[in-house]
Every structure is written in C-alpha cells, then in structure tokens.
C-alpha cells in the first residue's frame, strides 16, 4: 500500500516535471507567453477546451500547432491525432462531423468520420463560420459524442479543442453567443509580446521557424490522461472553495453585471483551479491560482452593462476576495 503511494507520488512528480518541460518546449517557439501556455494546459488538464482571442498575427495558430505537436509528435504516428479546421462562412456542419457516403463496393452508405474525430482540434477563426457550424462544434465539445440519425459515435477519450477567434468587432464575423462561450473552460486574450521579446523574435525568426519544425513530443497521451485524473484529486482548501462561491455570487449581485456566472461555471472554475495548480507544479490550490485564473475562466461568461464595467467589475470582485484570503490567519491546527 505504502509502496503504491510512493510509486504514485513518483509518477506525479514525473508528470509534473514533464508539464514544466512541455511549457519550456512550447516556449522555444512561442516567446514570452508563459502565462498563456499555462492556461492552455490548464484547460487541457481540466478536460475542457480553450478559446484564444486576438487580432490576426499574434501567434495563436502557431501556438496551437506547437502544443499539438509537442504532445503528438511531429507526425501523428503513435501520438495524439491533431486536426486543424479553418472556419469559413461557407463551412457546413458535415465538414466537421463527417458524412455518409455511398460505398461503391459494398453498395451502402458508410460514415466517413470528419475532422472532429481527433485528440487535439485546432478550430481556427471559429467566429467566421455560420452559427450553425459553431453550434455543431460546441455541441460535440460538450457532449463528447456525435449523433447522426440513429447512430451515436463517441469522440476520442482525450478530446481537446483549441479555438481561436478574431475580436468580435471585426467584419465578417458571427459572434458566439454567451451560452456557447460557456462551453470553453478558459478564454484567453493572446496579446502582443513585449517590446524586448518582439525584437528577439525579429532577430531569430528563422531559428524559431526551425524550432517549430523540430519540436518533439514531450508528453504522451497516457501521461495526459493520467494528469487529467490527477487534476481531479488536487487539494482545494475550504477557504478557496468559499472564495469561488463568493466570487460566483458576487458576479450575480454586481450592479454592473447583467448576467452573472452559473453554478456550472462555478464547477468549471473549480476544475480549472485544480488543473492550474497542477500546471504550476503543485498538488494544492493557492490564492495565487485564484488571482491568476479568475479572469480567464469567468470573464467570457459574464455579460456586462458597458465597457467600463467590463474593465473593472470582475477585478474588483476578485480583489475583495483576494483581500479576504490574504487576511486569513493560520489556525494552529491540531
């Protein structure tokens, strides 16, 4: 029994080390985005999906590719299956799901699986497709299965979607409704790199491209599945749970927030917290995790009264909770 625990501990520590390696690995290609990488991994380990939003050309796609490559290997052999779909206005749901086609040999319709049957899916520029396609994708993400006619096809056990979207205000976009945004565990604003990193990138863009070509697999699918299970077991202190509850409640009560977070969001929040702790190499959640992850998890789930409120209200709710946590005294535990 004890042997088992020790073994498991060793396994966890190895896996945690591997996560750090993975982050480092991705950083060789995507410079100065450690936080975003961590968020993506958090979504992965929390068995969720991630939405990246920013202007074109900030490295979203490269990021997704690098991640996929570093868990699947350069080719899809032996590792995870990585698929990429470029969303366009004329894309149809069947282009994603797959369709029945007539088999000349067997004289019957057989189901040709679409790109959704994979482990890591890069859904590029998701908001350029029509709402019909969007909701098809999001349904699959939520249900983890595809039903066509009377047949239900389960998706892969590890199914992780990295969706990117251009800012909603841009032309030729179909904004995702809040209810669907809810399917994404985490939404991150990718953002530009800082000035120094930018200079660095210009000086080394050839090397970076080379890095991407030579990225190798760091984490196996088994390890990811194992970590996904481990993420569930991360210890969350009751005060942190209380804080999650408080934050969720405060978003509902806040005068500047029209639509607050749901209970499902709260559960997602908790899952993300646990996964984030793991990504940071810890088996317990701290207030740091809470502070860093709250905007990424909650911001896209809330509807604000105006832009000003968007900038401030969640931050003030979080600050209040952080203040509460930082004032907590440590009781002398027996």
């Amino acid at each position, binding site marked *: 029994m004890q042997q088992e625990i020790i073994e498991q501990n060793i396994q966890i520590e190895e896996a945690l080390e591997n996560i750090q390696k993975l982050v480092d690995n991705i950083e060789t290609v995507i410079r100065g985005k450690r936080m975003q990488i961590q968020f993506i991994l958090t979504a992965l380990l929390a068995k969720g999906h991630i939405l990246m939003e920013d202007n074109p050309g900030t490295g979203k796609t490269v990021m997704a590719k690098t991640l996929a490559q570093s868990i699947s290997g350069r080719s899809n052999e032996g590792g995870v299956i990585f698929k990429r779909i470029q969303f366009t206005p004329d894309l149809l749901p069947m282009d994603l799901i797959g369709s029945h086609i007539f088999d000349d040999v067997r004289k019957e319709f057989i189901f040709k699986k679409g790109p959704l049957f994979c482990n890591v899916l890069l859904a590029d520029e998701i908001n350029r497709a029509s709402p019909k396609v969007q909701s098809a994708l999001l349904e699959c993400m939520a249900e983890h299965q595809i039903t066509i006619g009377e047949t239900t096809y389960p998706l892969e056990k590890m199914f992780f979607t990295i969706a990117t979207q251009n800012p909603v205000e841009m032309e030729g976009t179909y904004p995702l409704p809040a209810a669907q945004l809810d399917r994404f565990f985490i939404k991150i604003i990718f953002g530009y790199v800082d000035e120094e990193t930018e200079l660095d990138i210009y000086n080394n863009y050839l090397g970076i491209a080379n890095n991407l070509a030579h990225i190798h697999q760091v984490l196996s699918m088994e390890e990811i599945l194992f970590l996904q299970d481990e993420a569930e077991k991360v210890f969350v202190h009751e005060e942190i749970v209380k804080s999650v509850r408080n934050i969720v409640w405060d978003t509902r009560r806040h005068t500047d927030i029209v639509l607050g977070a749901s209970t499902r969001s709260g559960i997602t929040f908790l899952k993300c917290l646990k996964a984030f702790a793991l990504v940071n190499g810890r088996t317990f959640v*701290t207030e740091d995790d809470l502070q860093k992850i709250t905007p990424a998890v909650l911001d896209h789930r809330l509807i604000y009264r105006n832009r000003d409120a968007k900038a401030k209200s969640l931050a003030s709710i979080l*600050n209040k909770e952080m203040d509460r946590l930082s004032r907590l005294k440590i009781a002398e535990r027996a």
Partner: protein
Amino acid sequence: MQIGRIHSWKKVTAQLLLLAIPTVALVLYLLYNANEYFALLQNNSSEQVIYFATGIVISLAFYAYRFRFITTALLLFGAYFIAYKFLGKLTIGEFDAFFISVKFLIFALLFSAGWLAGYGFSRSRYFTIFWSVFLLVLQIIVVSKTADITARALISAFAPVLVYAFYIIYTAELIRNMNEDETKFGWFITKRLVGFISLALIVLFGLLLIFQKEFNSIEQDWGGGQGGKNNGGKESMTKQNKDGSLSNKDQMKMTGSLSKDKRLVFVAKLDNFFPDGKTPNPLYFTSTYYTKFDTLTQTFEEDKKLPYNDLFSPDPSKIPLYFAKTDTAVIRNTMATLNRKVVSTDVYRVILSPKEYIAPSTAFFCQPLPVENEYKSQFKSAYRAKMWVSDLNSAYFIYNPAGNKQLEAFQKQRFDRLREASSYAGLDKKFMDYYTFMPRNPEYNRISELAQQITKNAKTPADKMIAIRNYFTQKDEFGQPLFRYSDNPGIPGLPSASKLNYFLFENRKGYCAYFAGATLFLLRSLGIPSRIAAGFLTVDRSSKNPGWYWFYADQAHAWVQLYFPGYGWIDFDTTVPDQNTQQSPQPDGTPPMNTQQALLVADGQAVSIDTAAKRVTMKVKKMLFHDENIPAPEAKDLFMDVSMASVTRDTGEGKLSDIKTGTNIVVVSYAEAMKNVMANETDNLASLIVKLPKPAPIDEIKIMETEEQKKERQKIQAKVSQPFDWVKALWIGLAIIGGFILLLFLLPWLIWQYLNSKAKSNTAARLKAYNIYTASMYYLNQMGIARENQSPQQFAEETDKRFGSSFNRFTNVYQKIKYSSVPLTSNEEMLVQNFYSPFIEKVKNNIPIKKRISGFANIYNTVHFFTKSKIS
C-alpha cells in the same frame, strides 16, 4: 468640454457623509466656542457653519472632476473680489459698509476654509494630518481666551478635536482605498467605523481616568472650577468673577439675550426719606457711567477721563475697617448746589465682589464696616457710603404713583422745580460738547427726527424728558403698549446704530440697555447733556423694614441721567415694566442691624501670634478711639486678647491661623473695658496704649491682604483665581500637539516592534510562518512596497528581484502551509526557521536609512496596510 471625473459619485457620497459631515459638526462646535470669546464674530455660529459647509460640499463635488487647484482657487478669489466690490456699491453709509465688509470677510474666510478642506479631502492624501493640527492650534487659541480653565473645559475643548483627528485620518484613508464596486460597501465601512469609534471611546475614557489627577492640577493651576455655573451663550447684566462673586458688567452689550438669575447680590440700608420722614425714597445704585460713544466699534464706553468726573470708585477691600476714604472733588464736580443733602447707605454684600463699590450717584465716602457675628454667614462684608444726593432724585421716576398722594405731590413738585432749569447757557462748553455728542449720519439723523417729533410741544428740558418718557410708555392705536420689555428682543446682530434704529422703529422690544441707549441719543440730539448709568435698580418691597432694600442679580440695570443746571445729575429711567414676568416678590431676610459702637479701631501689622493662648501683638500704625483719631507719630505695639474675636477677610470668614507675622490687620473692640478708658486731648498713640487694659480685649479682626499675600495664600490653598498664563497655555498646547504628532509618527514603528518580536518568537512552524509573513509584509509596506494588485507570488518575485532575497520560496512554503494539507518537508521547515532575519537584513541593507526612517514615519502606509481593500 467634457471634464473627466476623478472620483465616482459613490466615493463623493462617502466623502460627504463620512468626512464632510463630521468636519462640519466639529467646525460648528469650534465656531460656537469661538463666538463666545470673539465679539467680532457676533454670535452667529449657525450661520457661519453654513458658509463652511457650503464651501466643503461644493468643493468636494467640484474636485471630483479633474479641475486644477491653482486655477480654480484664483477664479474663486476673483469672485470674492468682484462680490466684495459689488457689496461695497450696495451699502449706504460707512458703518454699514464696515459691518458688511466684516461679515463678508467672515464669509470668505469660512467658505475658503471649507473649500480648502474639501480639496484636501478630495485630492491630498496627507491633508488630514495638517488639517487636524490646524484645528488643534485653533482650539488652543480659543481655549486660551477662556477665563477659568477647568478640567471639564479642557476636555471638552480638546477631546473632540483629538477624536476627530484620529477619525478623519483613519476614515480618509479608508475612503481613499474604497473599492467602488464593492456591493456591500456600506456594511464594510460601518463595521470599521463602529469598531473604530468604540476603540476611540475606550482609549479616551482610559486616558481621562489615568490623567484625571493631572487635569485637576491643571485646573487648579489655572484657577476657576469652584465658580458658579456658566451662563452659556447668554448675556448677563452682571459679570461673574472667578471666586463666584459678582461685579457689574458692561451693560451696554446689545447682543443675544439677557439671562436673569435670582441670586441675592447685596442688601442695603438707605436713609433717604421723603420730607415726612417716614416714606422711604429709594435711589438707584450706580456702579459706573457710560458717557462716551465709540463710533468705530459702535459701543458705549466708560471714560476714565470724563470731564467733571463725579464717579467715586474706591476699592472697599483696601480700606481698613472703620477708616473712611472720601473724595470731595466729586461733590465739586457735580456742580449741584440746589436741593442737595448728604445721604448715607450701608451696603452688606452677599455675592457682590469685595472690590466693587456700589452706591447711589455722587457718592464721595466709603467706610468698611464689620458685620455682626450672627449675620457673618450671610454677609461677607459691609461698607458705609455717603452721597451728595438731590432731593429731586428718586427711583420713583417712572413708576406710576397712582393713588399715593404723597408721591404724586412729590412728582409734581420736582417737575416744577426742574422746569426752572431751562437753560444750559452758563455751562462749560467742553462739558456740553462732551455730554451732548452723538455721531452724525442718516441712522442717527433718523433718531434726531424722532426726538424733534416727540418733543415738539415741550419747551424745557424737563418737559422734553417727560415727553420722551411718555413716548416710551404710550399705547398704540389698538390700546397695546407701543414698547415692550423683553429679555430676548431678537435683535439681529447688527452694530449699535442699526440696532437702536431697529429697536426704535421696528420691533420696539428690548431690555434696559436698549431703552437707555435710545433715550440717550434722543436726549443728546435735543442738546440735553446726558449719560448712561449702570448699576442696580432699587425696588422698595419691604414695609417691615423701611429704608432697607434687597438687590438681586436680575435687578442689574442701565438707565439715563440728565444734567440740570444747579440741580446736577438726575436719574431718568425710560425702561418700561416687564409685563410678562412681574417682579416676583423675593423673600427679604432680616436686616443685619449694626448696633454696637466701635470703641477702639486699630490698623497695623501683626507682630506675634499665639494661636493656643489666643494672644496677638500688633504694631499699630493708625488708631481710632471713641471715634477720635489718635495721632500716631510712630508705630507702637499693642498686646491683645483675641479669644472672643471673629476673624474676617474680604472673601468671608477667616481663621486666627491665617494671621501671620507681618499680616496687615485691623482690630475692633466693643468691650466694656474700653468705655472706662478716656483719651485726653494730649494723648498720642503711645500714651493711650499704656492706658489700655493688657491684654486689650478685641472683638473683630479683619485681615487686610496685599495682592502678593493673597496670591500666596491662594496658591497654598490651591484654589487660585489668577490671571490666565499665556506661556503655560502655549506650552500645554504645544505639548498636546507634540504628543499627538509623536504618537502618530511612533505608531508604525511600535506596531513594527510588536510584529517583529512576534515573528522572532519561537512557535510552531505554521504559526511562525504566519507571523514572519505578516511582519515581512508589514516591513515592506512601511518601506512603500505594498502588494496592490499582484498575487502573493508575483509580489514575492518582484521583491526578490529587488533585494536578491528568497521571499518567493518562503511565500510558496507559506502558501503551502495555508492551503495544503500536506505536511512540510524538513527543507521547508528549515526555510521557515532561517528565512526571517536574513531577509529583513537584506531589505534593510538595500534601503538607505533616510528612506527607512521616512517610511516608518508615515502613518498612512500603516493605515493602508490595515485597511486596504485593493482598488482595481
């Protein structure tokens, strides 16, 4: 142009509620106090506080927008200037202008103060400290004006300001850090404020308990305390001395309202009777004259250099018993020869000041008398006064003699006499100019016109006088009295001319000072020499003891005296009777009859005192024997038996042990043994003392104290009423401010010492980690390195970057302790044990000492540390 906002309306509301309202309340309190001591403010604290409140409210709302201070303040001053010029154009006459400009100045000052306070609260973080110190200084100035400083007065003066100071510093920081999107902000603030206020109260009461002794000693040092109750903001016709006795006061104050009390001031026996020898003829008792009108300050004043001065004002407490002080120049200055006689009065003082000399006008003689033993508890001392009194003078001047034939006859007779004096031709021009002076301007011209109109049918001064009296007592068309008596005339706080006009032409209500002031100008405008006399109204209520009069505090009075050539000054009272409160009959006591004749009176210095055998030897300098003055070429010792003697002093009864070698005493003997000793014409002091029995029996000893002795004694008794000591007040005030500032500056450091010692103490790793973390965070916070919107880890990383420390590792361990159930590894335990001191050392080494000191001197950082609710 859209001007951006700095503060949300939520914040401005919080500032208004939590900063502005308490500030306005405190300023109201300060102004209320200041109004009591500074006449210029004219008792208008409620109005003044509105100026201040307007300033602070407008400023708070105004500076919630991004306005700059200097430009807006310049605009404000420009507005003041324009308003001032504009007001100057509106006013007519220089007195009005003066008055308006004073009022405007007060307005501008208070409005600016409010404006500045609003700006400070809105924009400046450190303003509250300066503001508190400023208010403390103000309060010291106001307190220093107080005549008698009691512990209660000190506490009530400084405690509110101190509590306010701590409150405002704390609350301002709380609001500065206010999280504007906080849903339960009200509750957040309430919780903290209630906690703070209860703590402040506990500390305050604790301090009071601890320093009660000191307060009492300050109180004794500064005198007062045992005096009577304060009359609050109301005016009184008498002024309370520190020892509780009363003096006649500046009666011509015409502000506020008059408060009356019913305390007995003195009792007098006046042997002035009508020609029938039975009916008492009461006379008003004069204390002083107001002859001069100061056009600048618009007040009536006493004049020490009045021409033909007929005011005799000795200090009875300085005159030895039975020895008389006279000033016959008074009689000459009266220039009165017709129908005059000498009248004497005995005044027994109760709460009248021993220095005060009160007698009917033209008094020229003062002789202190002893009080009979059985009355000693009732009357402190007594004196006899003699006056050069006109037969035509009487307190019955305006009282209706209806029914009393004798009085009616007297009135008629004396008016007939006075009518004879119809010309002021022969009088000294200087005298006439002085006593008929009145300022010339429209306000006073209006009074002149009224005087002409009232007296158009009167020829002689006497008739004019009667006409004026009739004007004040006449009834209007509805049968109601035209003028009414009121202690509370509700006259607006205006300078005298406007006030008298308001009284004469508008509301026609007032107390004696109004009637006297108005009458004076009416008379002077007609060219009749007149002056205002202040003193006590004499009311004959005693049928049992004719000639005895009882004087209560509410009989303090002011009236007018007219000059009639040949007849001199005649009292003339135009005050109408008070219809609301009829003179309630006072229970008059038994008069203190003085029957014994003093056979021996000696004045000198005590040489030796034997309190056990009750023998005293004194060096006699002056002696009265059988009412004869004994020539005393040189001082001689007199050996006395004082076993029967009662000892008195100015302030009441004394003890034999109060007499020390060198004390000036006056001794009196009524003893039979003295009757048998006769003084020859050739006897001098030395030869007479030989004839006296040895020891000489003595019945009265009066201690005549010099001012120095009095002070010494009062110091010993610790019941001092000495003048206010400015230097001491300044020191105490500075000490209070200094202590306050020192506490403010030391507080962060003291807290640090506490946290530091806690962090260094040996406890279990969990608790130790917590203490270390708190102490480290506090130290960094005092150094100005505060965690604002960073997460603990980010903050630790930045700190490490700055100081090369290992705060991040420690923070991680601390977070593990806080949020994890996993026990610490031995490495982590070591880290907790060895982290603290090196870390603090590193931080110390990286921050120059100057910055460290200034960091610890900054209480705002401390407040911030304990109140912060971080702002996005």
